[in-house]
């Protein structure tokens, strides 16, 4: 099937600085597609370029098979956008925000009124319909932003860090709603810094860094391809831990701060060794997407 989003060779410069370099991205219809990457990797810039909101230096972008930014208006009419920073209209109440936003899409008041009620229910804000924006919590604002992005019944929903800064209850509620949208056959494209979120929601994902795609696949594929299945996180004084772990066969060891991460296919000998060193604390767990992410993007801080 033709991809909903088809980006080829996308390059974007801010002055001298290259933010996206030769980026390729294809999102098939009906999937939940994740874009992971460290701060400053270029995720938001790529999304803005897709919507025709920033000029690009090189490459082509097609959304629904239409070229961007040339087809900007028709494409945006079929997209829903949840931006990284909330930009709800503070001059209005919750329900007015939805009504006013519907007008931006040329939708008439009569057509959208029942849809607005349904959307308020969908994000559980029905009883806050008449509240001013300033009185909402961060989680409510995020839910309203999601409802607003659905006002035009979009085929493609673009979400830039939809659950950053939200409590576990709200995050789970949003995950459930996003899965429901996917079940309806809509295509979701989201960025996130939460690996558990990506693992739970995304059918496919890319890991980008320095404006380039490093890897592409399903969460399970990526874990399988890049890291050993088991991890032991060993904590203690760095020198002491290093001395204990020095000659364990078959383990790949990485140190971040005071923690040594030991990746292995078989943790038994490691566990036996650690049992003899009671002064070291450790955690034994299956490897996950975060391990892949750290392996591919390195350990240095960004920005």
């Amino acid at each position, binding site marked *: 099937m033709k991809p909903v989003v088809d980006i080829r060779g996308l390059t974007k410069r*801010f002055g001298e600085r290259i933010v996206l370099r030769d980026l390729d991205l294809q999102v098939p219809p009906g999937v939940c597609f994740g874009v992971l990457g460290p701060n400053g990797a270029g995720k938001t810039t790529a999304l803005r370029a897709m*919507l025709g*909101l*920033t*000029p690009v230096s090189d490459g082509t972008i097609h959304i629904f098979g239409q070229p961007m*930014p040339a087809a*900007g*208006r*028709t494409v*945006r*009419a079929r*997209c829903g*956008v949840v*931006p990284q*920073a909330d*930009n*709800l*209209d*503070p*001059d*209005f109440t919750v329900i*007015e925000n939805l009504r*006013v*936003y519907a*007008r*931006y*899409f*040329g939708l008439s008041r009569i057509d959208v009124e029942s849809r607005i009620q349904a959307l308020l229910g969908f994000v559980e804000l029905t009883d806050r319909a008449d509240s001013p924006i300033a009185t909402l919590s961060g989680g409510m604002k995020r839910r309203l932003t999601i409802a*607003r992005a659905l006002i*035009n019944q979009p085929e493609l929903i673009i979400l830039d860090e939809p659950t950053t800064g939200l409590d576990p209850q709200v995050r789970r509620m949003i995950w459930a709603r996003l899965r429901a949208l996917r079940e309806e056959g809509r295509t979701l494209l989201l960025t996130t810094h939460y690996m558990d979120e990506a693992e739970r929601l995304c059918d496919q994902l890319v890991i980008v860094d320095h404006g380039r795609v490093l890897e592409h696949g399903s969460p399970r594929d990526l874990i399988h391809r890049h890291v050993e299945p088991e991890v032991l996180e060993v904590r203690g004084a760095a020198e002491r831990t290093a001395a204990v772990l020095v000659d364990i066969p078959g383990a790949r060891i990485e140190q971040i701060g005071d923690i040594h991460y030991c990746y292995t296919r078989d943790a038994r000998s490691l566990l036996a060794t650690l049992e003899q060193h009671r002064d070291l604390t450790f955690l034994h767990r299956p490897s996950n997407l975060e391990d892949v992410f750290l392996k591919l993007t390195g350990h240095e801080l960004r920005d």
Partner: protein
Amino acid sequence: MDTPSLPRLRHAAFAIWARNMLVLRKLMGSSIVINFGEPLLYLLGLGYGLGLFIGGQLDMPYMTFLASGILAASAMNTASFEALFGVFTRMVPQKSYDAMLASPLEIQDILAGEIFYCATKSLIHGTGILVVATALGAVSSWSALWVLPILFLVGLTFAALALIMTSMASSYASFSYYTTLVMMPLMLMSGVFYPIAALPELMQKILYGLPLIHAVQLIRPLMAGLPVTDVALHLAVLAAYGVTGYWIAFRQIRKRLHV
């Protein structure tokens, strides 16, 4: 992205206009006192006092002269303030334009809607002044109703001009330059309060190159029931300023938002 030489008005722009009107409706109650109170204050406070000195040299009552000037100046002020503070607030701290641009709307639609809204405010405010002026006996002809569309046009012109300032501003602080260095001198010298014949010849020449005097000279004879002269010239100057202002502001704002 196309680069229009003329402002583009699409139906979509009215979504922005309607958004702002909805906010205005919410505030209408509290602004009604200002709408009628301010012109009343001006006309009573200045009209009777200054009328004693200037009145004799005019071909109309000073109250009519002053009301015409205040109508023009208030159309300028109302539209300018909204295009400065209102537009900046929506564009920068509120990030409302970012939300609008994620919909099918484009920058031209937003700016056209904003300018139309500014002009609508000029019209509403001007209507208040016209009512007060009529009550004070300052209107001598039905031709004064023609003032209303002119106020709208003057609002369009000054909104577009002020948008240039807004498009370049990094904070509200820069707007006091515009209000003191552009709006204030225009208001004091464009024949709003006294006939410009009182000014040195060179200054008069310069004034005719600026927009506000043309608004005054369209409005004043209509208020007094006198024939309007040089209509095409006045309209052309106002339109030229408006279109140029829009064009510069649009390019600046596009650079600012589409980075």
